């Protein structure tokens, strides 16, 4: 206890020991994330200001890539296509997932709920690459959908369902409906059933209960599902590449085109930066509910 002489109380010494120990434990994960996530991301940010000239990397920083982005209509269109696809996917996934999650949470006997939920999201675990490809078989002119519609007499010619933006959206919606069902179900199942009774007791009708009690309370689930959907969908290459038929290319396709066809990493980096900006915008849009959900 001679430390009191130097002004370091044992209390403070203990606090410092604790801080050092905590930091040491968090260090491996933090360093890993720093080295293999933050540094690469910063490298992307830096490279986006470089320029690929033939085989040469021009390391004089400049805005050339960003200028090119706005000058070449292919890139700007890619941005719009990405936004369009992702927003459609997010909206449809939530719209399809909510009723399903709601039915499972409110209309299925509690002991079967997890079973039905699991059944509903099991194909989530299909190989991601193969799942998109399987939709090609479903959407083909002689695939299930067209054959069913034909035999029912709704159409006389097979519809062209695949290799377009609609197919991309469908493939995405299929995947993300399952994801959103999970997040929405988890917030629905956490609702106190007494709230419904209380609202009904206060004279609210079924619709009013849903609109003024259930929906606001499940917004965190919707927001986290929608945000996840947005982040993953906006950055995905596989589904549009397989189902989109190179029509209406989205940003990830353009990014990979820069990487695998032209070795133009600076341009790919600039496009990646724009992709990240979209995610930041989506986060800000959903932050209200995301943070509330976490608290």
């Amino acid at each position, binding site marked *: *206890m001679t430390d009191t002489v130097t002004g370091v*109380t044992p*209390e403070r010494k203990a606090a410092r020991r604790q801080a050092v120990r905590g930091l040491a434990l968090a260090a491996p994960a933090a360093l890993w994330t720093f080295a293999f996530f933050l540094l690469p991301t910063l490298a992307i940010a830096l490279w986006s200001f470089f320029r690929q000239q033939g085989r040469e990397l021009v390391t004089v920083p400049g805005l050339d890539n960003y200028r090119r982005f706005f000058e070449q209509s292919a890139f700007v269109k890619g941005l719009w296509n990405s936004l369009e696809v992702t927003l459609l996917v997010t909206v449809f996934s939530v719209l399809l997932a909510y009723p399903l999650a709601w039915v499972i949470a409110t209309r299925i006997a509690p002991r079967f709920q997890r079973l039905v939920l699991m059944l509903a999201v099991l194909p989530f675990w299909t190989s991601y690459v193969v799942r998109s490809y399987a939709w090609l078989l479903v959407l083909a002119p002689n695939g299930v959908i067209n054959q069913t519609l034909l035999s029912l007499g709704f159409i006389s010619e097979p519809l062209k369902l695949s290799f377009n933006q609609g197919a991309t959206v469908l493939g995405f919606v299929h995947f993300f409906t399952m994801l959103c069902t999970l997040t929405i179900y988890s917030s629905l199942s956490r609702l106190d059933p007494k709230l419904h009774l209380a609202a009904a007791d206060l004279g609210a009708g079924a619709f009013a209960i849903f609109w003024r009690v259930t929906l606001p309370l499940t917004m965190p689930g919707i927001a986290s599902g929608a945000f996840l959907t947005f982040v993953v969908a906006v950055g995905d290459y596989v589904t549009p590449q397989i189902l989109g038929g190179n029509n209406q290319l989205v940003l990830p396709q353009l990014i990979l085109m820069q990487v695998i066809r032209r070795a133009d990493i600076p341009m790919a980096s600039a496009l990646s930066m724009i992709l990240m900006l979209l995610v930041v915008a989506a986060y800000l849009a959903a932050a209200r509910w995301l943070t509330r959900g976490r608290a």
Partner: protein
Amino acid sequence: MSATGDLSLDSVSKVYGETVAVDGVSFSVPRGSYVVLLGPSGSGKTTVLSMLGGFAFPSAGTVRINGQDVTHLPPARRPTATVFQDYALFPHLTVAGNVGFGLSVRRLARAEIRSKVLAALDLVGLSGFGDRAIAATSGGQRQRIALARAMVVEPEVLLLDEPLGALDLNLRRQMQEELRRIQRVEERTFVHVTHDQEEAMAIADVIVIMNRGRIEDIGAPERVYAAPRTRFSATFMGESTLIEGRVTASTGARVQVESPLGLLELPGKAAAGAKVTVAVRPENVTLADVGADGAGGGVPLGEVSVEDCIFQGSFVRLAGRTAAGLGLKARIDPSRVPAAGERVALRADPARLILLED
């Protein structure tokens, strides 16, 4: 001071940022005492217990156990063991696993652990429960398991953090007796935190009353109850009516106090002319016209108009108000219950009046 007692605190303080949780607490108790730290929430009693257990370190002062300075020792290295509020039983271990935990981290031999665990379970009346999962035990059983788990490591001082708070009244009474019994058998120092003064009086050898981080009073339950040292402990240790007054005469061990209720004679020491407060406990106030000890035995408190009477089984709680507006409470015999609005005369047992200096 520390030499005489087996547990002693010397000017212990704990400061969290701007807040002073414990402010210069000193006390010392001999080995084998059952100490109860009593106080309202936020009084610092739990912080004192944490500093005894090593979960918090004092900002100043010294804690000694058996003469050894343990102020800055971590929990694992102090001769203390704690029965936590809500028990903190390990849900992934069985009852025996929980009780034996402290022994097994000390790397005792398996057979030794087994026999000690069996003895501990026996002590708390849970023989044969060793293989149960924690989830399959009741609240009262958990309390006993927690106790056994703490006792089995043979701590110099056993710390109990509101151990009975989660139990219903009957079980609480039963456990109070159990705790007392076990403490006597084991002859260990128990430090027990509670905010329930009845519980404190039921089990304590020494009650330490805390308020706002300081000790208000310390002593045997009878003394603390009958002759509280401060206004706070007088009210906290049980219902009382406080009567402001001034000392008019002081003769040896008795004083005469002039109060809104007239002149009161009571035991105590105070200088003539000093402002004092007289505390009266309801059980020491009865109707003036009944009672075996006759009209002459008590100090008359004057007339009150009855506001309310509540039947409580063995007695009736009476609340009345004097003409001057002072509220008085009394416990009266259920044989005659006045009606609301009736005017009755009250008297008090003079030996039981409590003199508090301001």
